[in-house]
């Protein structure tokens, strides 16, 4: 456990030295947040009502879906995991650590978004702040589970990017971030119901703004927890230390 904690501390600290991680975790979501805050309220004043949860979920998705898979693929292809394996690092550490590290970075970004949204753009302050923390954790759990799974099954950075975008782009378009679930065409709703962002938005709106539920909350809890748990279990089962083909 001591080794795991040290590894976590080193992983989180070294995350601040990684340009790609810094971009995907901080600059991209915060830049997008500032841009959306400046533009969207003029086009759609109702956007402000959903701004905080939408931007929090966006930050989580960029940090996890776009940030986690590639280092996992590179760890296998570059021999980093082989080096870890022969030096006694357990596989579970390599699966869990990027997730825990994402939690730390996401909490920092979320705090910035929570503070700046009302101050800069007049977004409504949440009625309940505390539920935001477990909801953030649940959303990270679900998105990070999918991200780790993508990282484990992808054979190259290119394929991991494609898999990530298959989830990321629909989440942006029909996952409740830009258009409320209730406003989606009926034909699109079944697809939206498969996306973690839809359920995360639903729960945030219910619990931090006390708005009416678009989807029963227990369904959203079950989907987010189920996706996360299934993805982590599959990732652990399918985890490989390297991409090395059967050489001789």
């Amino acid at each position, binding site marked *: 456990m*001591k080794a795991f904690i040290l590894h976590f501390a*080193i992983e989180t600290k070294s995350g601040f030295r990684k340009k790609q991680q810094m971009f995907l975790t901080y600059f991209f979501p915060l830049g997008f947040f500032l841009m959306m805050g400046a533009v969207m309220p003029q086009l759609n004043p109702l956007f402000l009502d959903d701004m905080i949860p939408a931007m929090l979920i966006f930050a989580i998705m960029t940090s996890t879906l776009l940030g986690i898979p590639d280092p996992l693929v590179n760890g296998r292809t570059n021999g980093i995991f*082989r080096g870890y394996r022969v030096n*006694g690092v357990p596989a579970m550490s390599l699966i869990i650590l990027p997730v825990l590290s994402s939690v730390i970075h996401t909490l920092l970004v979320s705090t910035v978004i929570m503070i700046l949204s009302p101050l800069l753009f007049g977004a409504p302050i949440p009625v309940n702040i505390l539920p935001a923390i477990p909801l953030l954790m649940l959303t990270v759990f679900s998105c990070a589970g999918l991200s780790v799974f993508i990282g484990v099954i992808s054979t190259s950075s290119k394929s991991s990017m494609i898999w990530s975008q298959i989830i990321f782009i629909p989440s942006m378009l029909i996952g409740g971030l830009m258009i409320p679930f209730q406003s989606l065409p009926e034909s699109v709703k079944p697809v939206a119901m498969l996306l973690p962002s839809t359920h995360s938005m639903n729960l945030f709106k219910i619990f931090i703004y006390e708005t009416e539920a678009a989807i029963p909350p227990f369904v959203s809890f079950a989907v987010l927890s189920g996706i996360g748990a299934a993805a982590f279990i599959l990732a652990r089962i399918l985890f490989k230390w390297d991409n090395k083909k059967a050489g*001789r």
Partner: protein
Amino acid sequence: MTDHIIRVNGLKKNYGSTIAVDGIDFDIERGKLVSILGPNGAGKTTSLECLEGLLKPDGGRIEIDGKSNTTDKKHLSNQIGIQLQSSALPENLTVLEAMRLFCSYRRIPVRSDLLSRFGLNGKLNTRFSNLSTGQKRRLSLALAIIHNPQVLFLDEPTAGLDVQSRIELHGIIGELKQGGTTIILATHDMAEAESLSDKIIILLNGKIVAEGSPAEITATGDSVSRISVRTENRDISETLKLLPGIESFHLTDDFSVLFSRNIEETVSSVLELIKSSGDTLVDLRIERPTLEERFVEITDLNKQTTGVL
């Protein structure tokens, strides 16, 4: 009684229908340095990975320090250190962080002594990506021995290194051997294997085709030795090539160069000829076939007999 730290009996490993390692047997004495040689695809990396416990053999038995390496993984992990050919560390990890991390997982205090010994003390806060190739190898080697393993596996440790870095790494390997560590080295560098090894195992198509000390391996070959002779008066040059057992002959600026399979007979004949002709010997050099030449001979012979390499 010989103290064997590694015993391999009937080791087999297949990849689908391809036989990578075909029932090989060998023993390794404690404290010795053994090189495993072979062309690409000979089965050396597969054999090493089976020994290291990274691959599960399809047959046979491997014992390290008296215990099976497939059933007692914890024992194996404590007994062996591995420097892989194709391994790396995260590019943003610093030297000190890497040492702290792996020592922590091994549950041992941080081995600052190794960083000092391997010349990495001035690089403690340098990121892995900013280290030179030689420094990366030294760090990798230092990390492989943090728990003082009895057996150390080195896979191409000097590949891609400049001369100075190779010499430094050879020095470190020599020190480890003197300290009693058994070292198994996989390399393509014949000169390295010849100079460092107590024993050499040559693999070809998953089988051992030669085994012994470097001297034994080179002595058993069919290669010719090169004998270079320089005398004060070069009048005997034409007579030299007529001596018995000479396979070929040519003149360089200063030397008459003879090629012979029977060194003793040829050298005796050369000395007698010089004496009888009243000439004086200035220089005599004998170059036995190198391990590289013997290796090429073995692989060529196999190619001719099996049509496979």
